[in-house]
């Protein structure tokens, strides 16, 4: 009996880093969806989708320590795939005549369409990963940047299928705050299960010391590839949500700006923990939203304050630089949310990790 209680307790403590976050987020969603204004609710949904995105980034970057600029490409793959299956039956024969006959004639229900899209982005991530993961850390980062540019160039010019650089408008919009919440929860649970799994721990070992990890027989290539594909799946989910939240997609929304903002979120929060990924989204979304509102003008007592467009981006860049310089491990310091009433193993591991520092890879010589 005592054993069972202890086991349950241990399981609870183990699950707390993700459970605690989910509970807090649920409270936030509950409050905003009952009392918040429409625009705040939209910001909330957008933030939850960003959590899916950043958690997707975190699965690869956080665990492997390799910066990837290419993950937003997988969002684009899934978003476009979902648009081909669900969007605008009337227009498809004209604007997207390069699609297979079957897709031109039929629309697929949103759920199987979403799953197929995610599968496609996973497949693309696998193919890309098979090539890119063979490279060493820094070269791999540059190669992922190449992947982003390749996909952008291809989709921008593949007019008969992607409508080039113009937007595809009229996707069904079904993403509500609660749907976004449950998807974010799913992504976070997947990320957490991966990071405490055998593969996740082995990958983290390669991040801490690649040479030592190799010497005990770990395959850096396979471990990184697994995380890369898993990340591709979650990024695909984020792409589908993004598309069906806005109802419109264009290839340039999945390019350097989105890459920068999501990477900034991850780094600001702390690349080395799930808590960091989620907290980073919260902090950066708050900064962005506040300045977005100020840019469009707010009444401040007697005078009207409106900052010029672009201020928000400048502030964001300064926040990111400040965090890199003054808190290189991010605001969370790479720690997980720990159950405060017990001494857990994870906490002592975290305090060890805290000493090392830096976004990824080895600390400096």
């Amino acid at each position, binding site marked *: 009996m005592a054993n069972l209680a202890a086991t349950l307790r241990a399981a609870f403590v183990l699950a707390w880093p993700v459970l605690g976050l989910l509970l807090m987020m649920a409270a936030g969603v509950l409050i905003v969806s009952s009392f918040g204004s429409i625009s705040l609710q939209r910001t909330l949904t957008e933030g939850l989708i960003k959590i899916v995105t950043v958690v997707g980034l975190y699965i690869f970057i956080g665990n492997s320590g390799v910066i990837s600029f290419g993950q937003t490409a997988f969002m684009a793959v899934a978003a476009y795939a979902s648009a081909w299956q669900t969007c605008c039956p009337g227009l498809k024969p004209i604007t997207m005549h390069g699609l297979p006959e079957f897709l031109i004639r039929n629309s697929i229900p949103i759920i199987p369409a979403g799953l197929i899209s995610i599968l496609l982005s996973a497949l693309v991530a696998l193919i890309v990963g098979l090539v890119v993961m063979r490279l060493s850390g*820094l*070269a791999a980062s540059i190669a992922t940047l190449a992947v982003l540019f390749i996909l952008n160039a291809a989709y921008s010019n593949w007019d008969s299928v992607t409508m080039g650089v113009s937007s595809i408008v009229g996707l069904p919009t079904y993403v509500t705050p609660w749907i976004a919440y449950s998807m974010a929860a799913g992504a976070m649970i997947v990320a957490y299960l991966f990071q405490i799994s055998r593969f996740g721990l082995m990958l983290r070992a390669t991040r801490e010391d690649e040479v030592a990890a190799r010497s005990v027989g770990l395959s850096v290539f396979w471990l990184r590839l697994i995380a890369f594909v898993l990340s591709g799946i979650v990024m695909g989910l984020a792409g589908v949500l993004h598309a069906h939240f806005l109802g419109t997609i264009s290839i340039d929304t999945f390019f350097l700006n989105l890459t920068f903002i999501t990477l900034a979120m991850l780094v600001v929060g702390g690349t080395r923990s799930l808590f960091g990924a989620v907290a980073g989204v919260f902090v950066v979304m708050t900064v962005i939203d506040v300045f977005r509102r100020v840019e469009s003008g707010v009444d401040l007592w007697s005078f009207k304050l409106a900052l010029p467009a672009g201020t928000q981006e400048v502030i964001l860049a300064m926040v990111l630089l400040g965090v890199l310089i003054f808190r290189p491990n991010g605001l969370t310091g790479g720690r997980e949310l720990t159950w405060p009433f017990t001494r857990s193993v994870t906490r002592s591991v975290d305090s060890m990790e805290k000493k090392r520092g*830096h976004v990824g*890879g080895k600390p400096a010589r």
Partner: protein
Amino acid sequence: MLHVLQVILDAIALGSLYALVALAIGLVFGVMKLINFAQGDYITLGAYSLVVPSASITPPLLFGALPVPAMIFSVVITCVILALATERIAFRPLRNSSPATLLVASFAVSYFIQHVTMLVQTGRPKSVGIGSQLANAVEIAGLRMPGVQILTMGVTLALLIGLVLFLKKTPLGVQMRAAAENFEMARLLGIRADKVIALAFVISGGLAAAVSMLLVVQTGTLDLRMGLMPVVIAFFATVIGGIGSLSGAALGGFLVGFVSVLLQTYLPADLRPSRDAFVFGLVILTLLVRPQGLIVTSAAKERV
């Protein structure tokens, strides 16, 4: 035959331009393991310094109105000051961070400069007429070449040769190469870290200024993203050439330029708009065959 020669000249012109940017990236990487994304924004800002900041799409000239030597001097000074400022404010506090951290930081610096420029100059492309008399074709031995291209080739080759001489023959240049080879060892032998790093940024600023003026003369437009493509291509060039190797960076730049021009010429017309996708695809394929790049240096392998 003439056509082939023409293509080769085109390729040399573009390749040497990329080689210049790649060398700037490679120099900075050598001394502080920073892959500097902001290099592109040095180029952009250098180009924008030619005109008076305004919202107009055909703005009056600022440095561009000066006599040519003064114009070149002012733009170079602007870019060098910008490069040094980014080093001092953003990169020096991070000097002991991992390359991944530095890469993210340079991404942030780039985003910052780009949006400050946008605040001042607005995001719309602008047109600026400098050196339009160079657009006329010059005929040399049956080869028709735009004056701009001759200028680009002349300037880039002169700069490349000058840089090589500087790196090989002067004490400072030797110090820089030593630092790029093994920074710790170089410091132990009495090379001042601050000096070498600042010098790398000065050179990268100067090269950015040269590239920015060449781009403006070539295209006649200013665009917030004008520095992006050259820099991304230079990234790939340094990786292909072998990260940490200066001659590798230059070689990589030339190779990417050659491949771009060859694809532009010989790709079927309907695939030509996607040329860059093929160029970048080749980058990845090259890396598959030679993951360490063409010229392998000690910097490529992480030491225990």
